[in-house]
C-alpha cells in the first residue's frame, strides 16, 4: 500500500487539565475524501488546528506524504496543506481576487525588492497569479466579481471564496471546517458537487460536517470523534450501521438514516452527469508553481 497523503499518528492535545484529543489517528489516501463527524466539543476543530500547525500536538505527529509537518502554519501551507474555517475568515477589506491572490503567496517567488524594480519576472509572476486566481474563482462558481470587497459577498459566496483561496495555495490536502454551515439545501448540494470536483483534480480532502447525510453521501471514509477520542472509522456503510455511532451521535434508527442517504446518493447519480459538463475544471498544465518562494 502506498503512503497516505496525510497521516496523523496518535495525536493528543491537552489544554491544562482538559484532554481535547486523545491518541487520534487518521489516514488520508490520495484522491480521497474523509469525513470527520462528532458532537459539538468533540475536538474536530482542535484536530484541524493540530493538522495545520496552529497547535503543536502535546504528543503524536502529523505526516504529509511521509514527512513530519513543521509546527508553523506558514510552513505547513507551503508544504501543501490548506484549510477553510468554521467561522469564515476572509480578509474583509480586500477584493475577492486579492483574497485568492494572498492564497497564491507561497507559490510566487517575488521578494520584497522584485516589485520595486518591476522586472519582467515580476510582471510575469503577477500576471500568472492573477490568471490562476481568476480561474479558481470560476472553478468555485464565483465569476465576474473579482473587484468586489470580500465583506460585501453573501454568506454562501464567502464560503466558496474561502475554498478558492485555499485551493490557490496548490494544496495536496484540503481541510474544510463545516463548509455547509448555514447553507440552504441547494447551496449544500452545490458545495458537495464542488468537493467532488476538487477531488477529481487530485486534491485529497478532509471535511468536518454536522450534516451526516452530506457526509455519508460524499465521503470515501468517515471518522467519528467523541469526547476527543476516535470512536469508529471506516467506510460510510460501516460507520452508519455501527451501534455506538448511532447511540453517540445519530440518535436515529439506522434504517431511517439509511433511507435518507440512499435517496441522496440516488440524487447525486442523476445530478452527476449534468454537473460534470458544466463544471470547468482548472487544468494545471505546468505542475510546477510560478516559482519557488523567495
Amino acid at each position, binding site marked *: 500500500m502506498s503512503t497516505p497523503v496525510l497521516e496523523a499518528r496518535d495525536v493528543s492535545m491537552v489544554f491544562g487539565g482538559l484532554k481535547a484529543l486523545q491518541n487520534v489517528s487518521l489516514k488520508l489516501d490520495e484522491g480521497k475524501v474523509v469525513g470527520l463527524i462528532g458532537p459539538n466539543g468533540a475536538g474536530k476543530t482542535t484536530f484541524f488546528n493540530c493538522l*495545520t500547525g*496552529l497547535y503543536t500536538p502535546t504528543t503524536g505527529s502529523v505526516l504529509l506524504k511521509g514527512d513530519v509537518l513543521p509546527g508553523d*502554519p*506558514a510552513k505547513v*501551507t*507551503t508544504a501543501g496543506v490548506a*484549510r477553510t*474555517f468554521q467561522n469564515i*475568515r*476572509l*480578509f*474583509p*477589506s*480586500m477584493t475577492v481576487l*486579492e483574497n485568492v*491572490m*494572498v*492564497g497564491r*503567496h*507561497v507559490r*510566487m517567488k*517575488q*521578494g*520584497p525588492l*522584485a*516589485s*520595486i524594480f518591476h522586472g519582467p519576472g*515580476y510582471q510575469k*509572476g*503577477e500576471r500568472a*497569479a492573477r490568471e490562476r486566481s481568476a480561474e479558481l474563482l470560476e472553478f468555485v462558481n464565483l465569476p465576474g466579481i473579482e473587484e468586489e470587497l470580500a465583506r460585501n459577498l453573501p454568506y454562501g459566496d464567502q464560503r466558496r471564496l474561502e475554498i478558492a*483561496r485555499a485551493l490557490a*495555495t496548490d494544496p495536496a490536502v484540503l481541510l474544510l471546517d463545516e463548509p455547509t454551515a448555514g447553507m440552504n439545501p441547494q447551496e449544500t448540494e452545490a458545495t458537495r458537487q464542488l468537493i467532488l470536483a476538487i477531488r477529481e483534480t487530485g486534491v485529497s480532502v478532509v471535511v468536518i460536517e454536522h450534516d451526516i447525510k452530506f457526509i455519508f453521501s460524499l465521503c470515501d471514509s468517515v471518522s467519528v470523534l467523541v469526547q476527543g477520542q476516535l470512536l469508529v472509522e471506516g467506510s460510510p456503510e460501516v460507520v452508519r450501521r455501527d451501534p455506538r455511532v448511532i447511540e453517540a451521535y445519530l440518535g436515529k434508527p439506522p434504517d431511517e438514516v439509511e433511507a435518507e442517504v440512499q435517496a441522496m446518493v440516488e440524487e447525486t447519480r442523476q445530478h452527476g452527469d449534468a454537473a460534470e459538463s458544466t463544471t470547468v475544471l482548472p487544468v494545471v498544465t505546468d505542475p510546477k508553481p510560478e516559482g519557488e518562494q523567495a
Partner: protein
Amino acid sequence: MSTLLQQLANGVVQGALIALIALGYTMVYGIIQLINFAHGEVFMVGAYGGLATYTWIVPESVKDVWYVSLPIVLVGGVAVSVAIALLMERFAYRPLRNAPRLAPLITALGVSVFLQEFVRNFYPNATAALPFPGVFVQGQLVIGPIRVGWSGILLIGVSVLLSIALQTYINRSRMGRAMRATAQDPDTAKLMGVNPDRVIVLTFVLGAALAGVAGVLFGTYLNNINTDMGFQTGIFAFTAAVLGGVGSIRGAVVGAFIIGLVKTLAGQYMPGGTQYDYVWIFVVLILVLVFRPQGLFGEPERVRA
C-alpha cells in the same frame, strides 16, 4: 495676500516632510498595532547618518557637485535609518510581540530617549545643533510673490513620488498583499503561508527608508540639525497619522499636509505666533479624537494597512 500665499507654500513643504514620517507611524501601527514613538528618532538618525556620510565618505572633489553627493548622502542616511529600525524591531519589539500592548509602547518611549541621548553623546559635537551642508540644492523658485528654496521643491517632489510608490507597492505586489492580509487578520495570513516576521521587518524597513530620506532632505532644507528634531517632527507626524486615520496610507499623507498648513498658518496668524504652533496642532488632534476618533480615512475596525 502675498504673505498668505508664502505661508501656504511653506505649509506644503512642511506637509511633505511630515508625510514621509507619518507613513512610517501608520504602516507599523497597521501591522502590529504599535505606535512606534521612536520613529521620530529614526528620522533624526537618518539626518545624522546623511551628515556623517557627507563628512567622511563623500570625496572632497565631488562635495560641491550636488547631483553626485546628494544621492550618496541619501543612501547613507537611509542605510543608517534602516539599520537602526532593524535593531529596534529585533531587540526591543520582537521579544514583546505577545506582551500586553502597553509594554512595547513604553519600550518605544525608552528607545526614543535612548537614541536621542546616544546620538547627542557619541556623535562628534552633537550636544549643540550641527550645520548641515547646504550645497546640494541652492537657489529659490520664485513664482510671483512666493519663494520656495529648491530644496523645498525637492522635498515636495520626493515626498509625493514616494507616497504614490508606497501605495502602489502595497496594493499591487505580492509582499504588499501579504502586508495588508497580515494587518487585517494575522492568524489567517499565517495560515495562507505568509511569514509574519518577514512582513513586520519589511514594514519597519519601508517606514525607516522613508524617514531616512526625510531626515536628509530636512537637513538640506533647514541647513541645520539637532538631536531633538526627531521628537518634535515625530509629534507632528504622529498627529498627522491620527488625523488621517492610523493605519491608512492615504490618510497619513492627507493628514500630514493638513498639519503642515495648520502649523505655518497658525504660526503666522494666530496670537503667539510660531511659539504656539504646537498648541493649534494639538487643538486639531483633540478635535479629531473627540469628533472622529477613527480619523479622516480610518475605518472603525482595524482592517487596513
